């Protein structure tokens, strides 16, 4: 009992902040999602109870579903590309090469930088018609319009920037796992006449399956919280017309949520955030299911 008392004294600062700023918000977000701001001069005082109206509106909100699709598209491009690049780098850097630590640090470095600032730098490189990437591509004869201002290329351009920024992290995760693979498995593969490719194909890839899956899951969760890269590089644009409706070709869900927040539609923004929570939980649950199946 004496232990319990002293323990809570040690826990107090952490617990207090946790309760006020992490636990309470989960419930408060739900409360907010059941309300909507009516009086812009008294944002939180003048909220009106609307029940599930925000959620019903969300279900019929074409712009929300569009942003959902764009987020999936962003995930579908960036996750496979990211895994391919970081896995290849890890396999290469797992060899006894000179300066491998220097390569590793240099490639990892951009991962710890601010997404927003990195986005600003890339926007400068991509800018039309004077950005260095635009001009280099033109020099080698590729005629391109503004990479970030054309619907077809805007999102892939963000993907390239983000994959190059983040691949160092995946690389380090893969490297850590590669070092745990017993040498004897590779030797067995050699005995069976396998070369370098067979070793990767039949030993490395099957053994790293859980890690691939893990990276897909954190990739999806990451895509659903993506915000700063699009805020910095495209602002959601350029516009694209589908049917008789105008949509924003890079407006991911995180950005759409922010736009609602910005216009002080706090209740609506909160209902989007709750939807994101369920998407996250669903994917994490799927991940834990498929992980479990592997070990049975």
């Amino acid at each position, binding site marked *: 009992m004496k232990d319990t008392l002293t323990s809570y004294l040690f826990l107090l600062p*952490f617990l207090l902040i946790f309760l006020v700023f992490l636990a309470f918000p989960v419930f408060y977000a739900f409360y*907010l999602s059941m309300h909507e701001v009516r009086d812009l001069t008294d944002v939180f005082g003048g909220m009106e109870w609307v029940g599930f109206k925000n959620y019903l509106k969300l279900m019929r909100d074409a712009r929300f579903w569009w942003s959902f699709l764009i987020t999936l598209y962003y995930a579908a491009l960036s996750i496979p590309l990211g895994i391919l690049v970081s896995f290849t780098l890890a396999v290469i850097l797992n060899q006894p*090469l000179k300066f491998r630590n220097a390569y590793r640090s240099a*490639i*990892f470095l951009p991962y710890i*930088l*601010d997404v927003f*600032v990195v986005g*600003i730098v890339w926007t400068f490189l991509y800018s039309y018609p004077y950005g260095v990437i635009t001009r280099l591509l033109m020099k080698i004869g590729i005629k391109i319009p503004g990479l970030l201002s054309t619907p077809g290329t805007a999102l892939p351009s963000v993907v390239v920037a983000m994959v190059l920024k983040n691949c160092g992290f995946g690389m380090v995760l893969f490297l850590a796992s590669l070092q745990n693979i017993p040498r004897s498995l590779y030797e067995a593969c050699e005995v069976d006449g396998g070369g370098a490719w067979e070793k990767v194909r039949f030993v490395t890839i099957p053994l790293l399956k859980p890690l691939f899956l893990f990276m897909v899951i954190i990739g999806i969760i990451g895509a659903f919280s993506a*915000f700063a890269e699009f805020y910095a590089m495209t602002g959601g644009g350029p516009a694209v017309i589908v049917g008789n409706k105008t949509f924003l070709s890079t407006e991911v869900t995180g950005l759409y949520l922010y736009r609602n927040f910005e216009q002080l539609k706090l209740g609506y923004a909160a209902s989007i955030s709750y939807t994101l929570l369920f998407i996250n939980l669903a994917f994490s649950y799927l991940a834990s299911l498929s992980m479990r199946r592997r070990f049975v």
Partner: protein
Amino acid sequence: MKKGILYILLTVFTFIVLFPFLWMLSTSFKPNPEALSLRFFPKHPTLENFKRIIRDYSFGRYFINSLIVATSAAFFATLFASLASYVFAKKEFLGKRVLFSLFLSSMMVPGLMFMIPQFAIVYRFGWMNTYRAMVVPHLANVFGLFLLTQYMKTLPDSLIEAARIDGASEFQIFLKIILPLSAPVIATVFLLTFQFHWNNFLWQLIVTTSEKMYTVPVGLAMFRSAHEELYSLKMAASTLSIVPIAIIFLFTQRYFIEGLTRGAIKG
């Protein structure tokens, strides 16, 4: 021969990864009329851009704000997490398991979900445009708690017993034994929280409306919407945000890489 190809591939790829930052650096030393030239090395290298953003556009102030926010947040978050980790690792108390899984489960919640309620709380507390608003909501660092608890569990109990027999109080044990022995992980948590807050753009953007409280990225966001065409200045401001954290990384990368990978795989 085959190794030669690997070296070339790696070098080219490393160059591509670092290219945006090299270009940013070189542009930040170019006079603005030269900013769009394809020449990498500035023809007339100048420090004028840095002088102007610091003097005329108050990025000096923003830089200090960023520094204050990131340092104080890292200090308090690490302190609170170490205090809590000590009892999670070494004590038995009522509600221990429930609390720990409650803490861990909060990591499943997307950050965007915390944003709106946290904003509401900060707003109601009247904290808008203060350092408190930027720092306090993020002081319960669950990820740090997890790393520190895992590590402190491996410290031998006999040391704590010995100190207790010598009459040390719980707080003395924490301060004199647990903290020094956990130094590497504490450094990791400190650096990761510092980096998190240095880069915590979205939150800093929504809790500041007064220009005096801008941090470097927030200042950059405002600057670019006002001066789209001042490329050299924009790149100088970006350099101001990127170079300090990059230098810290180069000297302490072991902590960064270990902390981030351990957290990801076990977390």
